[in-house]
C-alpha cells in the first residue's frame, strides 16, 4: 500500500485527471459528472481514432517492407499523412445502396458494429487512475458487447441482397461463434485465479514481484501462458485477422459481407475491425500481462498508462507480424483448429488453473512438484492433441500441377 501511495502522488500519474479537473472544475455537481463522462468518451474516441489511423499506416509500411517494397511514401513525410488522405477519400466517395437492398438494415449495420466495438473500450483499465467505467462484472460486459457485433455482420450480409455477401456473412458467423468458445474459456482461469470478474480486480491480483524482479503476471504461470496463447489465437480469429481472414477473403468472396458497402460505411466496418483488435489486445494486456503494472519495481516512476501503451503496441505489432508471415487457412482447417484443438486445450487448462490455485500453500520441494505437474498438464495435452489433429494429413500431393 505504501508503494501505491508514493506513486499515486506523482504528478505525471495524475496529469490526465488534473487536466480533466482543470477543464470541468468550475461546473456544479451533476453537470460536472456529465461533462467528465463526455470527456472520457471524447478522449477514448480521439486516442483510438488516431491509433486506428496510424495503425493502418504502420501495417502498410511493415507489410511493404516484409514484401520488399516501400509502402505508402508519397503523402507527407515518409507517408505520414496517408491515413488522413485515405479518410478524406472515404468521406467524399459516393455512398452506394443497392436497389434491392433492405435500406434500413443496410444503414444500421455499420452503425451497430461501430457502436458495439466502441463500447468494449469502456471497461479496460488504461492506467492506475484511468478506468473509464468500473463495474463488478466488467469482463462479462466486454464479451457481451463484442458478441453483439456478430449480429451486425449478419445484418450487413443479409441486407445487401447479394449472394456473396450473405454467403460470406454465414461463414464469418461460423468462424466468430467457433472461436468465441476458446476465447471465453481461456478467460475463465484468470477469473478463477484472480477471484474477480472486474478488470480492476484482475489487474490488482497481478501486482507485486517475486524475489524482487519476477512480476506476478498471469502469463508467467503455466496455465497463464497456455491461456494467453489460446486467447491470442482466438482473438486473431475474432478480429478477422490473417491467417483467419476468411470472412473477407478477396480471392474467393470478393470482399465478404462488405461487398455492397462503399465510402464511409465501408470505412466504419474497417474501423470497427481495428477497434476490435485494439480492444482484444487491451484485454489480453489486462488479463495476462499485468495491465498497467511496471515490469520491474525500479521502473515504477514511469506513469502506468505508458506501460499499458507499450504492452498494447507490442501486441498490436505482433498482430501485424503474424499477418505478414502466415498464409490463410481453409474454412475446414479453421473450424477443426477451434473445435478439436483449442476448445479441449482450454478446458484442460481450466483444470490446470484449479490445481495451481489449490496448491498455492505448497512450499520448498513441493513447489518444484507444483511446477512440474502444471507444466505437464499444459504440454502433454498440447502434444497429444496436436499429433492427433495432424494425423493422416501429410503434405498435400499436387498431381496435376
Amino acid at each position, binding site marked *: 500500500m505504501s508503494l501505491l501511495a508514493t506513486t499515486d502522488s506523482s504528478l505525471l500519474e495524475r496529469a490526465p485527471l488534473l487536466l480533466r479537473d482543470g477543464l470541468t472544475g468550475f461546473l456544479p455537481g451533476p453537470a460536472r459528472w456529465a461533462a467528465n463522462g463526455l470527456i472520457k468518451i471524447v478522449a477514448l474516441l480521439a486516442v483510438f481514432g488516431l491509433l486506428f489511423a496510424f495503425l493502418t499506416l504502420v501495417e502498410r509500411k511493415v507489410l511493404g517492407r516484409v514484401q520488399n517494397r516501400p509502402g505508402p511514401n508519397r503523402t507527407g513525410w515518409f507517408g505520414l499523412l496517408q491515413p488522413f488522405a485515405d479518410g478524406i477519400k472515404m468521406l467524399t466517395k459516393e455512398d452506394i445502396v443497392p436497389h434491392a437492398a433492405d435500406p434500413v438494415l443496410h444503414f444500421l449495420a455499420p452503425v451497430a458494429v461501430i457502436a458495439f466495438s466502441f463500447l468494449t473500450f469502456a471497461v479496460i483499465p488504461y492506467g492506475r487512475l484511468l478506468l473509464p467505467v468500473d*463495474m*463488478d*462484472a466488467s469482463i*462479462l460486459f466486454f464479451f*457481451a458487447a463484442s*458478441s453483439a457485433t456478430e*449480429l451486425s455482420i*449478419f445484418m450487413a450480409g*443479409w441486407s445487401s441482397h447479394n449472394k456473396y455477401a450473405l454467403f460470406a456473412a454465414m461463414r464469418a458467423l461460423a468462424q466468430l461463434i467457433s472461436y468465441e468458445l476458446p476465447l471465453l474459456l481461456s478467460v475463465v482461469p484468470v477469473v478463477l485465479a484472480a477471484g474477480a*470478474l472486474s478488470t480492476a480486480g484482475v489487474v490488482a491480483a497481478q501486482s507485486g514481484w517475486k524475489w524482487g524482479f519476477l512480476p506476478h503476471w498471469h502469463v508467467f504461470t503455466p496455465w497463464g501462458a497456455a491461456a494467453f496463447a489460446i486467447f491470442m489465437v482466438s482473438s486473431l480469429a475474432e478480429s478477422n485477422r490473417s491467417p483467419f481472414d476468411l470472412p473477407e477473403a478477396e480471392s474467393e468472396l470478393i470482399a465478404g459481407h462488405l461487398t455492397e458497402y462503399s465510402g464511409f460505411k465501408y470505412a466504419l466496418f474497417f474501423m470497427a475491425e481495428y477497434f476490435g483488435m485494439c480492444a482484444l489486445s487491451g484485454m489480453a494486456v489486462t488479463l495476462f500481462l499485468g495491465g498497467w503494472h511496471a515490469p520491474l519495481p525500479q521502473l515504477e516512476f514511469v506513469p502506468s498508462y505508458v506501460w499499458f501503451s507499450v504492452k498494447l503496441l507490442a501486441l498490436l505489432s505482433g498482430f501485424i507480424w503474424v499477418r505478414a508471415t502466415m498464409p490463410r487457412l481453409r474454412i475446414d482447417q479453421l473450424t477443426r483448429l477451434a473445435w478439436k484443438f483449442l476448445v479441449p486445450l482450454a478446458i484442460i487448462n481450466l483444470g490446470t488453473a484449479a490445481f495451481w490455485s489449490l496448491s498455492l500453500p505448497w512450499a520448498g520441494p513441493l513447489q518444484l512438484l507444483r511446477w512440474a505437474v502444471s507444466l505437464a498438464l499444459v504440454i502433454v495435452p498440447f502434444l497429444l492433441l496436436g499429433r492427433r489433429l495432424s494425423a493422416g494429413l501429410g503434405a498435400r500431393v499436387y498431381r496435376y500441377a
Partner: protein
Amino acid sequence: MNAVLATIALATIGTAVVAMSRRNLLHSVLLLTVCWAGVAAFYLWAGAEFVAFAQILVYVGAISMAVLFAVLLTRHSRDDVAAPPASRSRALYAILAGAAVAGVLIAAVARAPLAAAPAPAPTVTVRQLGDQLMGAHAASLLAVAVLLTVALIGAVVLAAIGPPEKPGDPP
C-alpha cells in the same frame, strides 16, 4: 426513476408487438433481439449487472444467431422469408393462446404479495452470486448443465447423420 422504467418497458413491449406484426421473418427476429436487449436494460435498471450482461451474451449474442441460422437454413429462397398472411381461424387460435398465457400471468401477478413500501435494493456482488450458485443452488445448476449437455449431444447426433466418408475424399 419511473420515467426510465417506463421508457424501457415501452421499448421492450413495443419492439415485441412490432416484431409480431412484421411479414418479414428476419425483421421480426432482429426486432425480437432488440426486445431481449430491452429486458437486459431492465435488469441493469434493477441493479442486477451480472444477469443483464449474461442476458446480452446469451440472448443477443447466441440465441438470436441460432434463430437467424434456423430461418436462413430452412428457407429455400430469400423471398421465402416473408410469411404469407394467416387465415382467420389461425388468428383466432393465436388470440386464444395469447389470452390463456396472459390470464395465467395476470393471475400470478395479482396473487403475488407485493410490498407496499419500496424495499431498499440489495447490492449483490458477483462473488456472492457465485457462492450461492455453487453452494445452495448447486443441484439446480448441475441439472441445467446436464440438460444443456443432452441438448448439445442431441444436436450433434442430428447433424452428424450423413453419407459415410469415402477413402478418396479430400480431408
